[in-house]
């Protein structure tokens, strides 16, 4: 692209933009101080219960963080305290206080009024008669029910650790989801802006909200650099707000400069502790970077989100330059292709000869594939198909894929992973989109494979003996349709030389000029003929068979395949 923007802006900062960041800078120092601790609230009208609880849990450390106790002695106090501390992780809640159901009223208040669904509520009652367990756990959104005499020091310890673990996982998932929603919501508006100034403001605002949190301080700046070596600040926020137009070398400390220069040299985004330097490709001899400095450590989720964001932003520059947005299909394609792993060497070094292929249709669908190691010996592989086309489908695909990556690290069973991904996709799914997903986890040392199938075309197992069969068992409905669906886990074992072939219906429903479908029979025949070959060869041969079959016809759906041989 010859006419990629050469960003050369007057350093006029928008007031609106600056306003946005003033609040964040001031922050609430009270909250900042207690970051790095788990907030646990004790609600009980008996002072003795407070004392015992403090004594039992005072030395508890989980994930290198201690507990910060909040104490309330009535339902009314508890309501005020949770409202002031929305980041409270656990509430140990008495039932009978100023009224017989004061505790239950607190539960209602937290879940229905404050809409806080993250805090784990453990009901502790001394009079189970007032709040029978069966009735309460069904009627109120609590997470655990204990009678007071049941909670010995050891039991209390275990209960708290389990609840903290739950809370941590929920926050991780919630954070990913919210970040992705922001990205999704950001893109349409970012493509409507008419000027480069707006666009840069948009990038900084989006990145800040992506990496920010309520009590975070965040400073960011947008830079431009050229092959001659000069890096200039185009626009800054927070402490960088006053340096528009200045050379980076005169503004940043040596640590920040080093990060920026490394990012520029390596031409990729880099993370270091609290900071990141985001590199945007640019096809002229200019490039752009965004430097963000937070007062909290940037974590894996942040990195994932920033990468998704940046993978998609560089092409937006071209569109802004032309002041017209006709290329939403290209955007969809870029999103889709940008998210696919293409490095197959990691798997081959561990005994798995894996290869995958995707060719988007002109009107992009939402196919996805993914594979990654969960630990040293377990490879997770995924194929899926979003039931829609264009940019929305591509984003839904991106959300699905990222959720799967995050949740696979927290849960181990394929059925459980799909169940949680499904629940998350169902929430706020206004566009009624759904996605078929096949997810497997293979033990690379034994060939044993657990899988769960959410409505996807059954993959084929091609045995080294020549037997070929579709893996039809265990299929349930696609993801995104029905909340709280169960997804079954099933298993099979591969022997030496066996092959697993996964595909989307773009393969079996590829059409020739007469409107005939490629169909399962042709695919099975092809797989039979290619038995024993390397995964890349199998896929390449399928691709060329499809090309021969569909010659002269337009490709109507994405074509995606993932294939691997175990210990070939």
């Amino acid at each position, binding site marked *: 692209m010859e006419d990629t923007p050469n960003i050369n802006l007057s350093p006029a900062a928008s007031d609106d933009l600056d306003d946005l960041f003033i609040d964040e800078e001031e922050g609430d120092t009270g909250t900042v101080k207690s970051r790095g601790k788990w907030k646990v609230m004790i609600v009980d009208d008996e002072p003795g219960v407070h004392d015992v609880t403090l004594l039992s849990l005072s030395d508890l450390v989980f994930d290198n963080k201690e507990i910060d106790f909040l104490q309330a002695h009535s339902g009314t106090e508890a309501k005020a305290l949770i409202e002031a501390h929305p980041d409270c992780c656990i509430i140990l809640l008495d039932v009978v206080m100023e009224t017989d159901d004061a505790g239950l009223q607190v539960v209602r208040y937290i879940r229905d009024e404050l809409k806080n669904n993250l805090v784990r509520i453990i009901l502790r009652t001394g009079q189970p008669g007032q709040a029978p367990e069966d009735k309460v756990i069904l009627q109120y959104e609590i997470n655990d029910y204990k009678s007071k005499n049941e909670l010995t020091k050891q039991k209390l310890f275990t209960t708290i650790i389990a609840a903290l673990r739950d809370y941590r996982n929920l926050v991780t998932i919630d954070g990913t989801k919210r970040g992705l929603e922001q990205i999704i919501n950001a893109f349409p508006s970012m493509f409507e802006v008419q000027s480069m100034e707006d666009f840069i403001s948009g990038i900084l605002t989006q990145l800040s909200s992506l990496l920010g949190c309520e009590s975070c301080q965040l400073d960011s700046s947008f830079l431009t650099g050229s092959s001659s070596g000069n890096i200039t600040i185009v626009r800054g926020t927070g402490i960088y707000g006053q340096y528009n137009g200045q050379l980076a070398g005169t503004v940043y400390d040596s640590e920040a400069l080093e990060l920026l220069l490394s990012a520029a040299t390596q031409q990729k985004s880099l993370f270091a502790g609290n900071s990141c330097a985001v590199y945007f490709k640019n096809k002229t001899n200019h490039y752009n970077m965004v430097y963000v400095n937070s007062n909290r450590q940037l974590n894996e989720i942040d990195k994932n989100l920033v990468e998704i964001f940046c993978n998609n932003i560089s092409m937006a520059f071209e569109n802004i330059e032309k002041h017209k947005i006709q290329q939403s299909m290209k955007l969809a394609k870029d999103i889709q292709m940008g998210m696919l792993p293409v490095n197959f060497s990691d798997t081959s070094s561990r005994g798995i000869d894996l290869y995958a292929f995707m060719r988007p249709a002109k009107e992009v669908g939402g196919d996805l594939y993914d594979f990654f190691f969960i630990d040293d010996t377990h490879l997770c592989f995924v194929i899926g*198909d979003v*039931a829609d086309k264009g940019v929305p489908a591509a984003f839904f695909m991106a959300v699905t894929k990222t959720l799967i990556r995050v949740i696979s690290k927290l849960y181990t069973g394929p059925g459980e992973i799909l169940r949680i991904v499904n629940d998350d996709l169902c929430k706020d799914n206004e566009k*009624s989109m*759904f996605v*078929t997903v096949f997810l497997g986890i293979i033990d690379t040392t034994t060939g044993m494979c657990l899988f769960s199938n959410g*409505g996807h*075309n*059954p993959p084929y197992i091609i045995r080294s003996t020549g037997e070929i069969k579709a893996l*039809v068992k265990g*299929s*349930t*409905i*696609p993801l995104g*349709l*029905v909340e709280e669906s169960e997804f079954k886990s099933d298993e099979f074992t591969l022997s030496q030389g066996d092959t697993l072939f996964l595909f989307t*219906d773009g393969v*079996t*429903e590829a*059409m020739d000029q007469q*409107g005939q*479908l490629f169909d399962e029979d042709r695919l099975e025949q092809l797989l039979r003929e290619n038995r024993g070959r390397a995964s890349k060869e199998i896929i390449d041969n399928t691709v060329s068979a499809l090309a021969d079959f569909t010659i002269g016809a337009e490709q*109507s*759906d994405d074509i995606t395949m993932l294939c691997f041989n175990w210990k070939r």
Partner: protein
Amino acid sequence: MEIKIDATQGPVVVSLNGRLDATNASAFDDKMKEVLSKNLGNVIISLEELEYVSSAGLRVFLSSAKEIKKTGSQLAFAKPTENVFKVLKMSGMDTILKIYDSMDKAKGSF
């Protein structure tokens, strides 16, 4: 595949025959959208003469079922052939779509 629509009395009956796959799924989708946009009340899709349905067809079933829910009406499926019922069951669709083995039962379900 032919799509016949009978909206003369009672629930709208949409009858399909032949094969429902990627070649005609979008035409069927357009037809369903057109029917649903008229807000004619409950709809039955008759599968009696449908020999084959692919995943592209299943998607239209699902999106129609989701779409009609918003209008407060319901969608039922009547008399699937053995082949089509196998596909519905294999994909778990039988758990979320209302499928009946006779037209009368489908009509009686609303």
